[in-house]
């Protein structure tokens, strides 16, 4: 069972719940998938133990938050923020959705809940995200949410034997008026 509801869409069909130990198996099963990890740039196998250890080492720190995106109680993805900087009011944001649930709108709706949280509760001013050039679906999600493509890191990623660009996106609080989808 996933954790308790932390934020939910108005219609309650998509929820953010704290990422917790019960989710390790779901995270392991999705993030090792070749089609997912290629675009997350995850190049090392992560078994159950590594997912649990990695979560305890990195994800539970003071400068990060992690949510399981659920629909409304079944886990369908993950969204996290890290490098939360309260002086400059910025953070990095990243999300993935289980490919078995792609195309069902969970990426923009789940990410929008995290953006709401970042601006309304964490009082941030700006969110950063980076998307690799072949990852068109994520670019569409970020643009749909109102992120601006601010820059390109040329040939920053080596994927399957070749070099790909990384696009950098930013969203300011004054540009955010929620996601209506």
């Amino acid at each position: 069972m996933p954790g308790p509801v932390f934020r939910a869409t108005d219609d309650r069909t998509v929820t953010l719940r704290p990422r917790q130990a019960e989710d390790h198996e779901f995270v392991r099963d999705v993030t090792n998938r070749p089609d997912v990890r290629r675009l997350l740039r995850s190049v090392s196998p992560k078994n159950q133990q590594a997912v649990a250890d990695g979560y305890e080492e990195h994800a539970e720190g003071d400068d990060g938050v992690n949510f399981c995106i659920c629909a409304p109680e079944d886990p369908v993805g993950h969204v996290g923020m890290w490098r939360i900087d309260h002086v400059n009011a910025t953070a990095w944001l990243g999300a993935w959705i289980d490919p078995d649930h792609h195309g069902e709108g969970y990426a923009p709706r789940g990410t929008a809940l995290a953006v709401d949280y970042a601006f309304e509760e964490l009082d941030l001013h700006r969110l950063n995200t980076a998307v690799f050039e072949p990852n068109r679906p994520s670019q569409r999600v970020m643009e749909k949410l109102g992120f601006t493509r601010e820059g390109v890191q040329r040939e920053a990623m080596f994927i399957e034997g070749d070099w790909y660009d990384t696009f950098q996106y930013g969203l300011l609080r004054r540009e955010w008026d929620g996601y209506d989808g």
Partner: protein
Amino acid sequence: MPGPVFRRGERVALHTLEREDLDLVARLRNDPELRWGLCPATPESDVTIERWFEDRVAETDASDEGAQFVVVPRGDPDVAAGYASLFDVQRPAGHGEIAVTIAPEHQDHGHVTDAVRELVAYGIEELRLNKIRGRALATDGRWRAALEDVGFRLGETRREARRVDGEHVDVVSYSLLADDWFDREDTVRGLPGRPPGATAAERGLDDPDSGAVDGGER
């Protein structure tokens, strides 16, 4: 039940190596017929195997790039047939060594060869290694054939480097270079159907006055 798939080959898939797979690893590493390959000539206890699991399999420190997998036949996805390793990764030289051990009851030349192919693709295409190394007992025809089938070339011979079953045996080393790997006809550089290179417009680099660049052109 093996962990999730990490890489999918034609005949086998490489899965994550989970704690439940350690019985298989222990059995293969102690097997009187199999253990001569690369393992030390000493018994490996559950304590040794547990330490190996903690240090080498479940570690989350990215500075050690080695990887351990369970080899699962694609036609029989509930069966852990053996395990496969990439280890001793050297940077910036950019090479690493591979090894594959398959249980006797699942030995099938195609499985070993396909596991080797996936390890090579992983090392060269995903980790950007320049060379993959392999070692074999000179007498281990099966493993040598698998390496040769994937395109490894024979390197030096270390004469009488190991003591095997009452005899000193030569060890031969093999290697495969990234250039040779990418020269193969069935190797594809980059993501299938997604050649690299954003258009200039996508990069925001086009000169609006030139009129030469149209978004979507490659």
